[in-house]
């Protein structure tokens, strides 16, 4: 049974679980000092130079698990003492260089930065090198290696730099909170703030959903997660945590697809608004393009709004794969609708913090949305849904020509072309994570099969058309 991709995720989970356990039993204040020792019992160090450093870092992780630094507007934070200050030397010729006589690296280098010693061993002149990596791509021995920090490599929009203490530092102005660095840092030194304590408090103060009801909204990518249990058991588990009911965010996606299709036909050019990291990227890196961002709310906000229309006292907790959703929740217009955002990692920690073994629970059901709403979870799904919504609404004089941008680099390329009027497409589907939401940093696992899981979950939906799924809301949504 594999719950996580990496040991770093597992460590983060253990901290979240212990904090959740203490919060559920209302002993947080007493338990806090003991948590580092519970997780790093010693006497041998297993992760760092000594057990005391391990415990000190766990202490920092506990802060993040409890909401992090309130002075920092970004939901992604660097744990300075956990940052291992990896080497940052850039492209280097390694020992694997055989001193061949072809010198493809020299030919490929656009700046003449490569020279050879008397053994034909290549050297890179760092003054001339522009870090393009072309030499590495042509080396027959793969001998040229990029010693870039994994966090910087993960951050395709270059929002991470190295500060004077050689630790990673996030530029909050350009960071889109996608969490790529969180997932990629091999030391777990970059972490998303957790709001599990807010969720536990919401649940507790609802007094078993009598004072108000707490609705869990789950993202469709949940179908690719918790693979050790059945989805119906995950739903039962969420209710066992104390949630009143579980609603699919995919129904919000159905609502969005329907009205986004109309907006697209009206305006003739649009960029999607589902992925908060993509939206933020446009706002910060391509401000002139911001006017083209769809005015539709994200599926999370749309379904939260629908829930609050049916129940004005409702509290909504979104559970998904996404760290950027935590940032989105802080935006005006969204914070009134969504009361808390959790990730799948955190949901697992809540289950175990409350000793809920979901594999022993009966199967509950989850069915609110259509096939199209559900496939929003993977790259290309949104474009399929918008095309379907155009068809269902009989909009035939407009032809959607989407470009599906899988990952923030593809988004950047499309936005760059669009900003110069060089993009032949009229709809940019932007997903910051590779593969779409199933590649989100808050996922327990990231795998090749996840896309298939989402598709088969889509096919299980009772409603095959978007119009059927949202028929009840038609009036409410038009208003």
């Amino acid at each position, binding site marked *: 049974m594999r719950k996580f991709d990496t040991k770093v995720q597992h460590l983060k989970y253990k901290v979240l679980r212990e904090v959740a356990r203490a919060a559920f039993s209302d002993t947080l204040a007493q338990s806090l000092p003991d948590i580092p020792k519970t997780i790093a019992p010693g006497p041998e160090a297993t992760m760092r130079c000594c057990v005391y450093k391990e415990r000190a870092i766990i202490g920092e992780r506990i802060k993040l698990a409890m909401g992090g630094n309130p002075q920092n507007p970004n939901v992604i934070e660097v744990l300075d003492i956990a940052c291992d200050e990896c080497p940052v030397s850039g492209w280097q010729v390694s020992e694997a260089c055989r001193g061949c006589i072809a010198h493809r690296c020299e030919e490929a280098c656009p700046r003449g930065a490569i020279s050879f010693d008397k053994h034909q061993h290549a050297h890179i002149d760092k003054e001339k090198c522009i870090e393009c990596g072309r030499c590495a791509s042509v080396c027959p021995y793969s001998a040229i290696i990029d010693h870039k920090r994994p966090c910087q490599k993960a951050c395709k929009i270059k929002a991470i730099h190295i500060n004077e203490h050689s630790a990673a530092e996030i530029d909050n102005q350009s960071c889109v909170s996608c969490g790529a660095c969180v997932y990629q840092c091999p030391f777990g030194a970059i972490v998303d703030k957790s709001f599990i304590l807010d969720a536990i408090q919401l649940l507790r103060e609802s007094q078993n959903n009598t004072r108000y*009801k707490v*609705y869990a909204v789950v993202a469709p990518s949940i179908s690719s997660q918790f693979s050790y249990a059945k989805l119906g058991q995950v*739903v039962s588990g969420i209710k066992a945590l104390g949630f*009143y*009911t*579980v*609603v*699919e965010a995919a129904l919000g996606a159905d609502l969005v697809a329907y009205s986004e299709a109309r907006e697209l036909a009206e305006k003739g050019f649009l960029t999607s608004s589902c992925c908060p990291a993509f939206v933020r990227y446009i706002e910060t890196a391509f401000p002139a393009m911001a006017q083209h961002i769809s005015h539709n709310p994200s599926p999370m906000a749309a379904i939260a709004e629908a*829930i609050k*229309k*049916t*129940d004005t006292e409702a509290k909504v907790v979104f559970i998904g794969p996404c760290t950027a959703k935590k940032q989105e929740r802080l935006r005006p217009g969204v914070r009134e609708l969504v009361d808390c955002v959790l990730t799948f990692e955190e949901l697992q920690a809540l289950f175990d913090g409350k000793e809920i073994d979901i594999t022993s629970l009966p199967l*509950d*059901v*989850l*069915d*609110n949305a259509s096939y199209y709403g559900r496939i929003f979870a993977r790259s290309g799904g949104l474009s399929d849904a918008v095309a379907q919504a155009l068809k269902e609404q009989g909009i035939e004089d407009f032809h959607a020509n989407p470009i599906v941008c899988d990952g923030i680099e593809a988004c950047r390329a499309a936005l760059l072309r669009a900003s110069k009027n060089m993009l032949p497409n009229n709809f940019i589907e932007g997903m910051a994570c590779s593969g779409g939401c199933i590649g989100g940093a808050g996922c327990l696992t990231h795998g090749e099969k996840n896309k298939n899981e989402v598709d088969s979950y889509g096919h299980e939906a*009772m*409603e095959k058309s978007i119009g*059927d799924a949202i*028929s*009840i*809301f038609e009036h*409410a949504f038009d208003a």
Partner: protein
Amino acid sequence: MNISVCVGSSCHLRGSYAIIELMKSSLERYGLNDKVNLGAAFCLGKCTEGVSIRFDDEIVSGVSEQNFDEVFKTHVLTPLGL
């Protein structure tokens, strides 16, 4: 009168959308659209009993296409004096 039909997962799978259609057409037939607010609810807490409907403060569950007319008569027409 406020009527909310449950569209939570369990009721949805038991046919709540068909019930909504029946409700819409019945309200239409009796000309009650201005007297009744029809809405949805995401759960009425009776998940195992079939489609649930809240008529003001009363929750009626186990509604199906078969018994809909009777439920409509008892919980809508009669209270409205029709």
